[in-house]
């Protein structure tokens, strides 16, 4: 019994690391640019397809394709921010919500048109490998994904807290007007924040590929999880989103283990509803930390 629980917790933490990359992206954009990116999941999907095609056409290992998917998505993010999002920033919610929502709809259906609804998988040497500790079983690909995800999250935290640009992003998130007076160019900061968030989504896509299938709707699984984690971890809070994502992963995994294979989403919704009912401001407080 205890071992089953520990195993479920380990599985949950490992996938929670991927959820964290997606939620940190969502919360970073929310904190800095002040919009919710409904299309974040579709960028995970793009990251997965990039990784798939690099592996299929050039035999590039999914872990190495991180170095391609992340910069590609960073540039894509900066361009989207500059040419689309920038035009709808302001006090009115409607255009912001529906612009990113339309973007999500567009990318998803374009993927359906271009790549069909087929599941694409990549098989690497470490896809089936696993570490055994006693009766516990730790899949290698998932462990690598978790470690890299945590490293990237840590790197983002260090970037936000030690570099001038990172500090400018936090300043722009806390007091946008004052930040402008201090000589921070908001357009530049917003483009970097959006790009960084998409780079994290791209990383999530590459890290997932050795053990997860790519298909047009794949992003929806992750974005829903990320939205809940972001509410739970307090909007705009990076550490909060990280911790909440790991919690979501564990809760989902325990649900699958003890309630049934298809109960993962129910657990997620239950957590969202409980959060809304009792802790509508999330577990912590504040903005980008």
């Amino acid at each position, binding site marked *: 019994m205890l071992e089953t629980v520990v195993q479920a917790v380990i599985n949950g933490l490992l996938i929670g690391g991927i959820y964290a990359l997606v939620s940190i992206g969502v919360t970073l954009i929310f904190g800095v640019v002040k919009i*919710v990116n409904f299309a974040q999941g579709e960028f995970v999907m793009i990251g997965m397809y990039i990784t798939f095609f690099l592996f299929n056409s050039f035999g590039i290992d999914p872990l190495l394709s991180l170095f391609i998917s992340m910069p590609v998505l960073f540039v894509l993010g900066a361009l989207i921010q500059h040419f689309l999002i920038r035009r709808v920033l302001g006090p009115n919610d409607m255009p912001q919500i529906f612009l990113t929502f339309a973007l999500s709809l567009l990318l*998803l*259906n374009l993927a359906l048109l271009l790549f069909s609804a087929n599941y694409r998988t990549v098989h690497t040497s470490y896809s089936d490998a696993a570490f055994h500790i006693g009766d516990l079983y730790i899949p290698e690909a998932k462990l690598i994904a978790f470690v890299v995800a945590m490293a990237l999250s840590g790197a983002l935290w260090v970037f936000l807290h030690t570099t001038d640009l990172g500090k400018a992003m936090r300043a722009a998130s806390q007091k946008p007007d004052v930040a402008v007076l201090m000589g921070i160019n908001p357009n530049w900061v917003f483009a970097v924040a959006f790009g960084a968030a998409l780079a994290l989504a791209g990383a999530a896509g590459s890290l997932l590929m050795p053990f997860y299938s790519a298909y047009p709707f794949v992003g929806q699984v992750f974005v829903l999880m990320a939205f809940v984690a972001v509410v739970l971890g307090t909007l705009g809070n990076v550490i909060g989103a990280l911790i909440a994502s790991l919690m979501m992963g564990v809760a989902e995994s325990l649900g699958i283990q003890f309630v049934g294979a298809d109960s993962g989403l129910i657990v997620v*919704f239950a957590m969202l509803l409980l959060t809304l*009912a009792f802790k509508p401001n999330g577990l912590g407080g504040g903005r980008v930390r």
Partner: protein
Amino acid sequence: MQSSSVKIAALVVLAMVLLTLPQVVKSSFAIDIFIRILLFSFIGVAWNLMGGYAKQLSLGHAAYFGLGAYTSTIMQIDFGISPWIGMAAGGVVAAIASLPIGWLCFRLRGPYFTIATIATAQALMLIFLKFRDFAWGAEGTTIPNLGSSPLMLQFENRASYYYVVLGLLALGLFITYKIEQSWMGYYLVAIGEDEDAAEAIGVNAPRMKRDIYMISAFLTGLAGTFYVQYIYFIDPPTAFNLNISIEAALVAIVGGIGTLWGPVIGTVLLETTSALLQSWLGSSTGGIQLTVYALILMAVILWRPTGLMGFVNEVIARRREQKPRVRTAP
């Protein structure tokens, strides 16, 4: 005075055209498209009450569509009650369900309200997928075909369905018109503009939002019953389909958010586009319809956020400005 009599005349002409349309156009393919246009106009009108006037941007109206659909179907199959009564009951169930859902979702504002509404509709779908003893689970059920049975909301010709949904749309438009003219309409617009400011001048925003959500949910529930009666089939992915929530919002935004006729105009544009695409490309190319919808939505948001109605109003205003000049010319 003159403009209002012009409006009434236009309305009478429109009503006559719509009433005679199925008598003139006999193609059942065309009538099917008309029914889709009227149905989604109606859902868009229901969404617009809340999303357009009060700017509470829900993407979870499928929840009420599905509840309406399931209520009437369960009443019909398990208890033999006419779907006409089931339809009203479904609307009431949807309206009651909007109370706890609203209580939760209204704790969040802006985009997070939107996300919470998506989640509630998805959660309801999962519940109906899970409980097979209660409502046929994931397999769904076909609705028994009784042939021509108007009292059971079943007809042999499509034209009758057309008149039913036309009646629903007229009801939705009438309610919207009445609300637009009343103090409630002004309060809702005030909430939509700036909720805090509205509360500061004495608008009871939580109560207003709750009430309009109930009305909006009620109407959406009626649409759900109509839809499953029309297609004779129900299962959770049909009844709680996210695409219904999306299209409800989409037609209102494209047509003109917060305007009486916006959702109707938006639906005519989107559904016509979709029908044309289907006849050109066939229905095999999945994704093309929503790709085009997404592009239209992006174009509207970036270049004309007031929608087609905003564009029409601008043109009318420009013409009015020019009129006196024309008259004073020699």
